[in-house]
């Protein structure tokens, strides 16, 4: 059997543990000096790709990301986890899922990939749409919100986290799979691997060279922070709680 190549698109996002500050005009968040991480769900996708490689199912894992030069560090982290090579599509302007999906589709067409495996949502924009857009654009089958992925004889059998429970579907490859939280627990990249990752193949390309135009379909105009809930009060006992819920809040 020929080798199976897998494409793992990743996004870098601000660390979810830091408190975000908005720019004074609300046009974005302050990014100077903030800590970036690999999007949680994409990290799960990288981990799953590595596990498929460890099982001997996948032979090559290629990463792709879109963004400025300093996205390189996040790609190197994913290489240190165990991916084989990375493509950084350099772009400094605004991006949206539509642009990302066009980039991923073009990169897919240039390689001989059997699967695109990526996070179900980015924890910054919280849209949950890029995998579906990519699948639609390439007219490939999709299996989104995966909590289990089994690859055999040219098909992926994927258990999906859906409203009301789990659904298992079998799709022929090539296909697009998006990862949910319970798929796996990603490993940490060991320090020596971080050094070695810098020697792995790393390609920087432009939107132009892919033939992708930079326009976006959705533009973020302003960001605001929602009003905080007003502070509540302590209740000393279950009886006091019940009285409050009945007489004050009137929800019982």
């Amino acid at each position, binding site marked *: 059997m020929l080798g199976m190549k897998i494409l793992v698109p990743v996004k870098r996002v*601000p660390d*979810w543990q830091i408190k*975000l500050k908005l720019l004074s005009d609300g046009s974005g968040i302050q990014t100077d000096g903030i800590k970036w991480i690999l999007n949680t*769900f994409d990290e799960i996708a990288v981990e799953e790709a590595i596990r498929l490689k460890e099982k001997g199912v996948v032979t090559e894992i290629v990463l792709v990301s879109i963004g400025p030069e300093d996205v390189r560090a996040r790609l190197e982290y994913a290489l240190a986890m165990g991916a084989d090579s990375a493509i950084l599509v350099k772009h400094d302007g605004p991006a949206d*899922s*539509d642009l990302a*999906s066009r980039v991923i589709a073009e990169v897919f067409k240039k390689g001989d990939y059997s699967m695109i495996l990526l996070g*179900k*949502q980015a*924890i910054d*924009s*919280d*849209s*949950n*749409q890029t995998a*579906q*857009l990519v*699948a*639609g*654009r390439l007219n490939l*089958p999709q*299996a*989104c*919100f995966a909590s289990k992925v089994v690859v055999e004889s040219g098909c992926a059998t994927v258990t999906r*986290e*859906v*409203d*009301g*429970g*789990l*659904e*298992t*579907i*079998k799709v*022929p490859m090539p296909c697009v799979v998006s990862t949910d*939280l*319970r798929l796996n627990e990603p490993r940490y990249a060991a320090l020596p691997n971080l050094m070695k990752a810098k020697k792995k193949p790393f390609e920087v390309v432009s939107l132009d060279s892919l033939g992708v135009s930079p326009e*976006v*379909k*959705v*533009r*973020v*105009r*302003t*960001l*605001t922070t*929602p009003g905080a*809930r007003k502070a*509540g*009060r*302590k209740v000393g*006992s*279950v009886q006091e*709680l*019940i009285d*409050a*819920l009945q007489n004050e*809040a009137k*929800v*019982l």
Partner: protein
Amino acid sequence: MSNVLLYIQHDNGKVLKGTLCALTAARELRTSWNGSDIVAIALGPGAQVAAQEMLKFGVSRVRYSVDPLFEKYRSEPYARAIALAARELGASTVVGLASSSGKDVLPRVAVLLDAAQASDIIGVNGDGSLKRPMYAGNIIAEVEVLSPSRVVTVRATAFAPASTEGGGSECSELALSGDPELREQPRFGEVLGYEISKGDRPELADASIVVSGGRALGSAESFEKVMFPLADALGAAVGASRAAVDSGYAPNDWQVGQTGKVVAPNLYVAVGISGAIQHLAGMKDSKVIVAINKDPDAPIFEIADYALVADLFAVAPELTEKVRGLRG
């Protein structure tokens, strides 16, 4: 092409409450985007019943298909049929509930219509821009949709369910011949099976009372022993924090939070939940929040209306008993 197409999500013909919330958003979008009519499409078993039901809600023309192609939900044929309906009914905007299947299928529809996709919106501004949460709900973005064709998914908790209004007249079957590729579906694979965690309790997404348990419950057994009786006494749905789900105390589709379900019931009772940002993202718009936690510094208390600092194993059963007494 200026009609607004509503994707009717239903359960064997019973229209989901969230679909009516999406209809409210569709009405607002029609106003802000100068649309003319609201039209709709329903697919799958019971689609005809659901389609007919929507005529009572001011939807002017409805299409449905109960073709075997749609017997089980699959993104590919569903996306093609929704796009086909949009073209036939002259819709440049498609709106649907951001449920798991809505999120799965509608971006694919956006590609088929060369449309912009805006997901999980929580508001429609008069000037046509949309509001949507980002960063686990810590930031609200106002976004402009720059494409003349648009697909939008709607967060149900942000819109009231639409009320009935006259005006619907035409309900007919969708002619699938409009898209020859619809019949090529075998290459998109098949559904092998389901594992449904349905019980007798209300649906998490629609429940007016939700009780959620966290990691402090300690085990699947105590989760069940403490949370289920409390839920049943209150007539509530059961939710869980991500920590509780990760620890195997509760199934994933009970997860309330940024990447799980977003709920906004009249009463939310958090039991043994510390209140990580990503959990708060899924419940902070609840009308009244009660938190029970023995750690007085738990972040959940910062957003709770009523804070009971106590051992949950002592007070949760007491709460259950007292509520039973009230309702007895």
